[in-house]
């Protein structure tokens, strides 16, 4: 993520991240408030009401394909990184399949287990990140952050619009509404967006201070690189990037897992009557095939980014906006018709 922000906006990546976070928070409030009247219907349930059954089905297929492709490429990148960074002699296929099995186990257990898992892992995750920031700050140069707004406003906005897509997990709130017992808490969703944004901004700032813009643009995994170069006195761990990789693996596990978990849900929705176990096996097998069919790590990385950009532009930004506009126009038309009838 820091690499992408640096490529898009240089040292103004920080401003772009802040802008993207703000936009994501506003978008969250807007979308969740706009669809509040549909109660516990999920995104595709709303689509079915607004755009019709066929459109909803087609969009469901698209969502499954997008999710499977993104997860597959993510798994491949994970496999490549694991074997590359910790110099593990295990084949990439084994790394991908092992991670997929672990994800399958979690996905089969459903959304509730996934949320508990996130709750449990959040604090250790943040603690290790704090440790990483500490390590990075040790040799960081704060002047690398300056001057701000060196890029044009247009460039920063363009970067922010791309970075906004990293907040795609917000759409899962709209997919999880049928499973939420209590009233949807918009405040918590906004809080989550800001926490996410703060973490991304902090990671970017620390890596920027450590490497500078030019180096950050060149490094694919700057955080791992940063940990590689950290030498802690009186530590018996020689290479701290192993620690970071553990966190990174967990992060990818959560990313891929949550995507596949929702894909499984949507697949069960499309193929009514199919058990959750079967749909999760189908989705994960498809993701593994995608992962193994990628030519190499860098291809997988590029494909992952493209899937994210295209897929989330449609599903995260496009679909809710279209639904809102269509719904709005429908209501307007109905209102006019009713007024005419009354007259």
């Amino acid at each position, binding site marked *: 993520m820091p690499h992408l922000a640096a490529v898009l906006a240089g040292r103004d990546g920080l401003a772009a991240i802040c802008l993207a976070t703000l936009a994501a928070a506003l978008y969250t409030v807007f979308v969740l408030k706009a669809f509040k009247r549909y109660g516990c219907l999920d995104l595709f349930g709303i689509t079915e009401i607004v755009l019709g059954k066929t459109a909803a089905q087609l969009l469901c297929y698209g969502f499954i394909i997008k999710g499977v492709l993104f997860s597959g490429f993510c798994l491949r990148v994970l496999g490549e990184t694991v074997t590359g960074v*910790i110099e*593990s002699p295990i084949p990439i296929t084994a*790394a991908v399949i092992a*991670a997929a099995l*672990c994800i399958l186990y979690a996905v089969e257990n459903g959304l509730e287990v996934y949320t508990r*898992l996130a709750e*449990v*892992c959040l604090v250790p995750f943040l603690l290790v990140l704090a440790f990483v920031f500490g390590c990075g700050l040790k040799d960081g140069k704060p002047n690398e952050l300056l001057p701000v707004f060196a890029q044009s406003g247009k460039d920063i906005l363009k970067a922010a619009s791309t970075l906004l897509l990293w907040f795609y997990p917000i759409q899962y709130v709209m997919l999880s509404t049928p499973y939420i017992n209590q009233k949807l808490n918009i405040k918590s969703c906004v809080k989550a967006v800001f926490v996410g944004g703060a973490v991304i901004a902090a990671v970017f700032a620390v890596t920027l201070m450590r490497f500078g813009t030019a180096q950050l643009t060149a490094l694919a995994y700057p955080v791992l690189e940063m940990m590689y170069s950290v030498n802690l006195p009186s530590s018996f761990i*020689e290479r701290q990037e192993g620690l970071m990789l*553990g966190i990174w693996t967990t992060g990818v596990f959560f990313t891929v897992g949550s995507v596949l978990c929702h894909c499984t849900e949507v697949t069960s929705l499309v193929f009514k009557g199919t058990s959750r176990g079967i749909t999760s096996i189908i989705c994960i097998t498809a993701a593994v095939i995608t992962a193994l069919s990628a030519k190499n790590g860098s291809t997988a990385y590029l494909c992952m980014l493209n899937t994210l950009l295209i897929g989330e532009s449609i599903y995260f930004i496009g679909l809710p906006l279209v639904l809102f506009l269509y719904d709005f126009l429908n209501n307007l038309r109905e209102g006019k018709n009713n007024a005419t009838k009354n007259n």
Partner: protein
Amino acid sequence: MISKNLEQNIAVVESTLTDWGDLVKRRIAVGDESRGIFVCYIDDLADRGLIEDSVLHGLIVDLRLTHTSTDTDIQALLDRGITTADIKYVDTMTEAIDEIMAGNALLMLDGFERAVIISAKGFPKRGVEKPENEVAVQGPKEAFCESIRVNTVLIRRRIRDTSLKCKQLQLGRRTKTDIAVMYLEDCVRPEILSEAMHRLNDIDTEGIFDSGYIEQYIQDSKYSPFPQVQLTERPDKVAAELTQGRIAIVVDTSPFVILVPTVLASLYQASEDYYQRWEIMSLVRLIRYVAGFFALTLPGLYLAVTLYHPSMIAAELAFKISGARSTVPIPSLAELLFMELAFEALREAGIRLPSAIGSTLGIVGGIIIGQAAVDAGLVSPMVVIVVALTGICSFAIPNLSLTSAYRLIKYMIILLSAALGLYGWCLGLLFVIIHLCSLKSFGIPYLYPFAAAHGLHELKDSLIRAPLNKQHGSIFKKR
């Protein structure tokens, strides 16, 4: 049904309990000689002294039965003649025979259509002794024994509250084991209580011989190695947990009481935690969690680092490990598994042997054989240290069932680490966490309060033990 004709009733008892050499039965003529009483009990299962002093003596002296005595007259005579308080009347022979087998005495009278059951259980039982598995330096030294009544008394003695309820039922088609379900009515969550009663009533088996049987029948996930109910031998712990809204299931013939619902955090708690100052006990709690983590992961971590990633640890340490391993002729995985299994065998042997020999075996096995194996170059000293540390860490966990679960899962992590290195270790750990997240005990998430908590205040009795006046109600409690 019980007949008015005593001879007919005696015939039923004798035909049902044929070849019961330990059955004591006697027909005694009382009143106007034409009437009689029949007493029956199992020798030593019922208290002979109580039957003779409080029942027979009074009846033989006072009973003035005549041909014209009605049921009401007889009942009045019985009420006057039997001086023990705990009696009841039954109307069928099946019930009467069940009561004999439970250790009570049966009394039947000529011309009376009911049987009198005198509670006279007098079987030999162990007294209240010190706890063996949950030893505490500070705090009560009483432990449960095999008698259900003694155990319920030990709990009642600690909670003098009218809302402490004790529902009693019998389980096991053949054993008809007495079970007491105890709870505080104004603390327990009704849905948890009804679920517990439902699961208990659903048990259909030949026999219940220990609380372990009940545990396996009522747990949520049959295929999980993690304990989903808590077994304890300490009455003070049960009493404290009852006040937190948990339910205690007391099983006759078992010195362990079951506590439900159970979460992982409760398995790390010991009753002593609340008897000493919170600062030190918080440290102890933290140490237990760290020890639990190492008991589960240390051998796997050692294997992953030495096999695949020696460059990840400090060079001096890596050289020491590889130097120590240079003379060992067997692969690291086999070496570690051999030592782990040897440790398991030692532990098992130590439990089965008398305590004096058990400690000797520990010394001989742990020190002498371990040293000899290292000297002979069969295993490296690092593996001995890792296995010993893992063992010590597992002993720091206050719950035996949780220790056993960790012992089992440890092998899965060892194998994953041997196959995939640190990555496998990480995935193994994730598997365990996912599994823990998927578990529930009577509807309560197993990882509560680390997951599904309603705020940070609910963590005050988990990783640390906050001061008693700062602790708030638990999730088990009725809100």
